[in-house]
């Protein structure tokens, strides 16, 4: 815990920290899932709605006709449904928490990255962009992300989701070990 706090506060001495227990937060997300299931009939998830939104950005690149004709977006067209509104809510809530707790801070290069790869903003941006491509392609291929598969699928004891969790963590451990290995 101390190390983590040091990493979080690190160079920004002014920024305050949050003392909520991770178990409390996890229980909160679990209870939020009850409401999502019973109240809305729509488990917590992010990337399905993200794909719907992506068609907005795809139109100027590949043409709106290509978007309309695309079989994937035909199966999930852009609409302001539960998932998309949920997606819009996430940054709102995170922003409120960050402002209220005093943990909002501009971050160009995170500490762990800086320690290993140096302070280059360009290098970090390129990696974040490429990582973003890979993570979203993977999420759509698998049919969900840490929320939709990991939490919502995991808590339903879905075979697909536990396979996702196992492979995702195993791959992450290996890649992390390679990436943070000192030369």
């Amino acid at each position: 815990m101390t190390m983590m706090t040091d990493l979080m506060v690190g160079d920004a001495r002014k920024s305050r920290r949050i003392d909520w227990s991770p178990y409390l937060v996890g229980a909160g997300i679990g209870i939020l899932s009850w409401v999502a299931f019973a109240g809305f009939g729509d488990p917590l998830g992010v990337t399905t709605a993200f794909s719907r939104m992506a068609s907005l950005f795809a139109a100027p690149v590949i043409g709106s006709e290509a978007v309309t004709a695309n079989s994937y977006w035909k199966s999930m067209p852009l609409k302001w449904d539960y998932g998309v509104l949920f997606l819009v809510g996430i940054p709102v809530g995170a922003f409120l928490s960050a402002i209220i707790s005093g943990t909002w801070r501009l971050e160009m290069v995170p500490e762990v990255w800086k320690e290993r790869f140096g302070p280059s903003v360009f290098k970090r941006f390129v990696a974040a962009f490429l990582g973003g491509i890979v993570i979203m392609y993977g999420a759509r291929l698998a049919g969900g992300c840490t929320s939709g598969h990991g939490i919502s699928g995991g808590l339903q004891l879905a075979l697909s989701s536990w396979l996702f969790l196992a492979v995702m963590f195993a791959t992450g451990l290996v890649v992390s070990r390679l990436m943070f290995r000192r030369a």
Partner: protein
Amino acid sequence: MTSLMSVAGPLLMGAVFGYLLQQGKVTSCNVIENQFRLRDFTVLKVMGTAIVVGGIGVLLLVDTGNTKYYVKDANMLAVALGAALFGVGMVVYGYCPGTALGAIASGSVHAAVGAFGMIVGAILYALSFDWVKAHILNVWALGKVRLPDITGVPDAIWFAALAVGAGALFVWVEASEAKAKRAQG
């Protein structure tokens, strides 16, 4: 009134989720990277508790007829390949899609850059969907199955095992963290 709720309801749900992610520190790239480096177990603590607490509640809600399961297709090859890509992306990016959205709102500029990458990834998937559907999604497609269905082990046993397993892991993690803290002084 109904239309107001249909907009405000999901927005509020998302906002509570985003609030919890930020309060749980999992919108921090450092916390996520250090989970995969086994130096910080915040991500596992949050996810493990969410799965056990959420799962027991949802099980009761299903049993009492208040909801149903929304299980994703077990297209085993696609899920395995997708999860492997996801693991690579998560370590390189330092976020998963939901935590990235929270991180952007709490000031992470590199998370915002990666979000454009995520848009590109979603577009690439849509463009390759016909091929993926014909060659990958249909391999070892077992349907919407749950672990209790294929193993014959009832839900209650699964959750008891999960709760005990997660509890034991967390006790061990807390003990190691306390020890490390004492060693640091």
